[in-house]
């Protein structure tokens, strides 16, 4: 197990009277990729902004390498939050070429890799001589992605790194992320709605809703906890004392059960013997059921 890189302790954040984050606690190991998943307005961006010190929490601490980020200056420049914007005032009033932004980032981030930044600029076909406020939404996202990847910051946060991106650019991003992470492992948090495209990369998953954590598990633990059972309805129902049913979808006599375990080896063996197919529930479905998206999850 790697040492803990990032720790959030009792983080609470209010926008006026609205509680956006509610007493959040979690730990992330060094060189781990975490998927931050949640519905619109669940608090993903707020959480990333609080981690990156762009918003100051009402309560709690962000701890990096056992040091409080707010008070310890040694953690400076260790975080990069890649977003599709550089701030409202900056975008509206500053006339700055994209290459100047990268130049400033190179000055600021100690591990900045200029060769890699140039490689990414070519791959994404980004015109760095254009003014930042004149480029498209997708290009702004690309600027954020390049900042995030080339900064080589010890903790890199990507907030929905696909906004406005075409499918080709998205694939380039995924490929570059995987390649660069293999060569330069670091702690990554990626918030996303496009769960199916990214879930293969996640080592840990944090599902949040209404500012609270619903699931915080390594991906292999999720596989041991949430299952999709498919088979004859009566056959599956005969086992329903061994798990908690989150959702049921039926087609004739066949049914698809989304369930929360864990289910022990013996039961799994018996389910298989009864021709019930067992697989891991997709993260997208899990999010859907956990956030009351399903119709049959009355027991939540």
């Amino acid at each position: 197990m790697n040492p803990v890189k990032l720790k959030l302790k009792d983080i609470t954040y209010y926008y006026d009277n609205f509680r956006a984050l509610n007493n959040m606690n979690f730990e992330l190991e060094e060189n781990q990729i975490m998927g931050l998943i949640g519905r619109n307005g669940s608090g993903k961006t707020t959480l990333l902004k609080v981690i990156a010190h762009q918003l100051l929490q009402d309560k709690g601490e962000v701890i990096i390498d056992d040091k409080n980020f707010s008070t310890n200056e040694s953690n400076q420049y260790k975080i990069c939050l890649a977003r599709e914007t550089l701030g409202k005032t900056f975008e509206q009033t500053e006339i700055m070429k994209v290459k100047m932004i990268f130049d400033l980032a190179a000055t600021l981030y100690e591990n900045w890799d200029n060769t890699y930044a140039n490689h990414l600029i070519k791959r994404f076909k980004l015109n760095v001589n254009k003014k930042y406020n004149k480029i498209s939404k997708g290009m702004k996202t690309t600027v954020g992605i390049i900042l995030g990847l080339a900064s080589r910051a010890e903790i890199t946060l990507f907030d929905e790194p696909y906004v406005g991106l075409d499918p080709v650019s998205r694939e380039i991003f995924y490929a570059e992320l995987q390649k660069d992470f293999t060569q330069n492992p670091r702690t990554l948090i990626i918030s996303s709605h496009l769960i199916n495209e990214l879930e293969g990369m996640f080592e840990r998953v944090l599902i949040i809703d209404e500012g609270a954590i619903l699931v915080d598990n390594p991906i292999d633990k999720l596989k041991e906890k949430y299952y999709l059972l498919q088979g004859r309805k009566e056959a599956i129902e005969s086992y329903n004392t061994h798990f908690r049913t989150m959702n049921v979808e039926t087609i004739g006599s066949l049914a698809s059960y989304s369930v929360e375990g864990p289910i022990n080896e013996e039961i799994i063996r018996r389910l298989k013997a009864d021709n019930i197919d067992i697989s891991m529930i997709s993260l997208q479905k899990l999010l859907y059921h956990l956030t009351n998206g399903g119709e049959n999850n009355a027991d939540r």
Partner: protein
Amino acid sequence: MLIDNSMKVMAKVFLRFMLTFLLIYLAIIFFNTIVPLFFIGFSEFDVNEFKISATLYLAALIYSMLVAFAAKCTSVYYDMFTIFSITRKRIMRTINITNVLLTVTGSVVLNLMLLMHDIPDRGLFLIMITLSIYLILNFLNFVAFLGKLFGWYYIVGTFVLLASFILFTVNYIGGFIQMGLFKTEIITFFIVATAGFFLVNNFVLSKRYEYKH
């Protein structure tokens, strides 16, 4: 360390900003001192008059540049630093150091230029100019923070009030300084007002307010 990466970034954006002002300055000099010569003849060119105009325009432009940069520091560059996840404490430190450097540089340049003019009581002018620049920078930081916190329409109102105040008092204060009256009171006002804005700016930024505008 005084010159950290944030200061280096600030220096880069300042140099870029200064270059723009330099180009404006050269354009103003060209249009106001060279272009008229095409109509009245180049034989009318007076070196001394040119020197005086050039230094006056430079003084005015330095003042404008400092004012504009101070306003940008706590609005545009605040955003930029925030995006780069620089802590607020570090941002404020960078802005404070920048203010001191701008004040010293601005005051030195302005006072050197004033050496070309016959001014009584230079020492007093040096102090007044230094303090007034530092007060203006801190005041503008404050106004920009207000704008970022509550919306930019507050800036318009604040500047209208400020302009009214300046129009109302500038003749009196300028006269007092020239005549050497109320020296202690004026200097005390500059110091107290600057300290007030400095403390409020640092206090406001240490709080959890969201700078959403």
